[in-house]
């Protein structure tokens, strides 16, 4: 008897356990928009880190002073209802009367000053202060007016002031609870409040009735972490989610043919490049490879590489990308997109014979090009990098290079190659297209470990771009800047990633933002 009883008991315990923890589904009349986020999602303290895809979600419940318009046309008010320049180096912001944080604290000039001063100083382990170094001082003019003084005229002030770290948090609440508790129970002043947080899994936001610009149209927005794109597709087909980005190529036809699902295409605002090594000093390179002379030190070799790559083919292999010659996305930075994104120009650029000529000029006999060590992660931002690397390797071998391809998983790639500067001839870099940061990356005083470049003349142009407020003048400078970029052939641009998104269009109406940010203040119910 004992035995049967024990067996039943064990099964019973197991089943009761199963039932008590059965996940509860939300069953109410509220409209709920679920976005499949690939993760990971970082802490809720917006000033403590630089992770873009987390800031996408932070934007739902924090207001900034101003914000980038969804269609890329300029900037829109958030906590500030208007703003203007006062002289070359001062920007004045007018705050909204009676606006508060979710907990009732006022969004006033003192709060704004507290926030910007906070982000300008090192916080935690990944501070953003370098990106806010353009700010000289924040001055409280009166309760609802605040001035930001910059060190010098700043061409990209509005962009920078609406970027990571711009999110306003309530000073009194934060000082009371501290960072750890704030990460658990964050408070902002945006149109949504955080209703439920399961770290790196599920973030549920509910509309805030008292938002200064009116309650948002959708009652509840959920960021559901689902790492695998294929899983996201299945979840969309099953009606578990309403929007995903990065739809895998073979699934597009299926989704397109499904009633109530539409595909949307927009720039992902990220690009793939191969970085060529042009020095032997930066990073850990001299210790790891003492006396090693990368072939790419020779500019002819680099030119051979850039002409050996069929960018249209690489973009096609990637599945959702459009070929580019320079680091110009369709949206960012300013200008030159026509010149470096023109399909004919790019097609002409692919010229294996020219590549062979350059190799000959570099002193290599036909078919006996140097060895290129190509490092790539398996998956880069925005999709597979492995297949792109495999095809690139084949193209390079066609003109006579020998390619030694090493593919690592993303974190190993970051540690062993990218961050330590152990890159040899070529390394994949997947980067965003921010106009404000772009010239900085190539400047002599840039401090990052890997891939530094220094050219005094180029440097001077970059400096000038950043302080030239007049747009036409600035674009003229950009033109010169890009010439250096192409000439140096250190960053060999491959393509811009296009985001293919799939939307539950039967229920929701969503227009992708030009800047590639997946944030959902503007989602509407379909047919409204």
């Amino acid at each position, binding site marked *: *008897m*004992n*035995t*049967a009883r*024990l067996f039943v008991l*064990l*099964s019973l315990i*197991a*089943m009761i*356990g*199963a039932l*008590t*923890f*059965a*996940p509860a*589904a939300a069953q109410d009349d509220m409209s709920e928009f679920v976005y499949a986020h690939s*993760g*990971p999602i*970082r*802490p809720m*303290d917006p000033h*403590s880190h630089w992770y873009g895809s987390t800031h996408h979600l932070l934007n739902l419940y924090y207001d900034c002073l101003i914000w980038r318009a969804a269609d890329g046309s300029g900037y829109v008010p958030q906590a500030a209802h208007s703003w203007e320049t006062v002289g070359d180096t001062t920007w004045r912001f007018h705050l909204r009367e009676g606006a508060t944080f979710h907990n009732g604290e006022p969004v006033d000039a003192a709060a704004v000053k507290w926030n910007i001063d906070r982000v300008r100083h*090192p916080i*935690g*382990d*990944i*501070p953003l202060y*370098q990106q806010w170094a353009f700010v000289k001082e924040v001055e409280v003019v009166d309760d609802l007016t605040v001035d930001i003084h910059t060190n010098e005229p700043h061409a990209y002030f509005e962009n920078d002031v609406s970027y990571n770290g711009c999110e306003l948090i309530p000073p009194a609440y934060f000082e009371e609870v501290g*960072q*750890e508790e704030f*990460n658990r129970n964050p408070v902002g002043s945006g149109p949504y409040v955080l209703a439920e947080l*399961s*770290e*790196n*899994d*599920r973030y549920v936001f509910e509309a805030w009735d008292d938002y200064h610009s009116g309650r948002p149209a959708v009652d509840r927005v959920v960021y*559901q*972490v*689902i*790492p*695998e794109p294929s*899983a996201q597709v*299945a*979840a969309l*087909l*099953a009606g*578990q989610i309403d929007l995903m980005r990065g739809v895998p190529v073979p699934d597009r036809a299926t989704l397109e043919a499904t009633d109530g699902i539409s595909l949307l295409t927009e720039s992902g605002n990220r690009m793939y490049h191969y970085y060529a090594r042009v020095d032997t000093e930066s990073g850990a390179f001299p210790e790891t490879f003492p006396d090693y002379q990368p072939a790419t030190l020779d500019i002819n070799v680099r030119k051979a590489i850039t002409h050996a790559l069929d960018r249209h083919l690489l973009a096609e292999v990637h599945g959702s990308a459009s070929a580019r010659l320079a680091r110009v996305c369709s949206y960012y930075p300013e200008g030159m997109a026509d010149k470096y994104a023109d399909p004919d120009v790019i097609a002409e650029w692919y010229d294996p014979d020219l590549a062979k000529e350059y190799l000959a000029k570099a002193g290599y006999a036909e078919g006996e090009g140097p060895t290129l060590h190509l490092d790539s992660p398996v998956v880069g931002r925005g999709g597979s990098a492995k297949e792109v690397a495999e095809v690139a390797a084949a193209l390079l071998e066609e003109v006579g290079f020998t390619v030694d391809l090493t593919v690592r*998983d*993303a*974190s190993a790639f*970051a*540690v062993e190659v*990218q*961050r*330590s500067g152990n890159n040899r001839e070529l390394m994949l870099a997947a980067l965003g297209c921010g106009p404000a940061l772009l010239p900085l*990356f190539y400047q002599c005083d*840039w*401090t*990052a*470990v890997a891939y530094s470049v220094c050219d005094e003349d180029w440097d001077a142009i970059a400096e000038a771009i950043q302080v030239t407020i007049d747009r036409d003048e600035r674009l003229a400078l950009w033109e010169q800047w890009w010439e250096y970029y192409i000439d140096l052939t250190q960053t060999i641009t491959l393509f811009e990633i296009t985001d293919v998104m799939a939307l539950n269009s039967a229920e929701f109406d969503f227009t992708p933002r030009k800047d590639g940010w997946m944030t959902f203040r503007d989602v509407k119910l379909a047919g409204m």
Partner: protein
Amino acid sequence: MDKRLVMRGFFISRMLQLVVTMFIISVVVFFILRLSGDPILVVAPDFFSQEQIDQMRKFWGFDRPLGEQYLTFVRKAITGDFGKSYLAKRPAMELILERLGYSWILAAASAAIGLTVAVPLGILSALKRNSLLDLIITLMSSLGTAMPSFWLGLMLIIIFSVHLRILPAYGALQPESIILPSVTLGVGMAARLSRMTRSAMLEVLNQDYVRTAHSKGLMQKTVVMRHALRNALIPIVTVFGLQLGWLLGGSVVVESVFSWPGLGRLMIDSISVRDNTVVQAGLLFFALSFILINYLIDVIYIILDPRIKFQ
């Protein structure tokens, strides 16, 4: 022997063992995770300078000697502080407890499926030894053992989610979400358990007293229920305990296949971004629960049969 006395002795000796074992695990886990250096390079943004990276090292205490770091870790761990996640900036144990419910429900459902399928099949197989039925059951259980559980999961997704579209394949958003992952794990568990049940039953059936019972003319069913199964249960329960190790391990991969927000996925996610505090706390937690479950099974043993001896 007095059961209460046995229990007390059991607890004291087991508690001592637990402390020693956890100490050993903590050493192994700590030093393995420090093997490749610190995770700062993964966490730091692209454009950080060496100076900023050094600051981060200092912030997390990676600039201290390894031995000192270990002692700090142990000192804090004893008070229940397993350090903060590098990424979430929240206590690692808090993140683990957040996911625990999901892992528990998945393990329980899989164990329930495993037990209810395996034990009757194993018994049947042993009773009808060398019959066609036995052959089929044995073959199926070998197949279940040989199959990678995550692949079975993928196949179930293809059939039930992609083609038939009757079951959700991902996450824990609806109550039905548990079906596919628990069946995936349950099948592997059942395959392993039924093999063990069969051989345990066979061993018992061959023993003298069972044969005696038979010869005394007791009916087959009575013999099985009263004599054989009771004695076979002890090895089955032991194996069940050991299989929980397999279940915990299998759940790591299967949770990742189904995006099930349990401990396993937390581990995989943390490993992929080298959030070592969470990985470390997770490994210790897995080990502790595995040991405790097996202690619990030993207690069941004692309840079942007080004559059991311990070392």
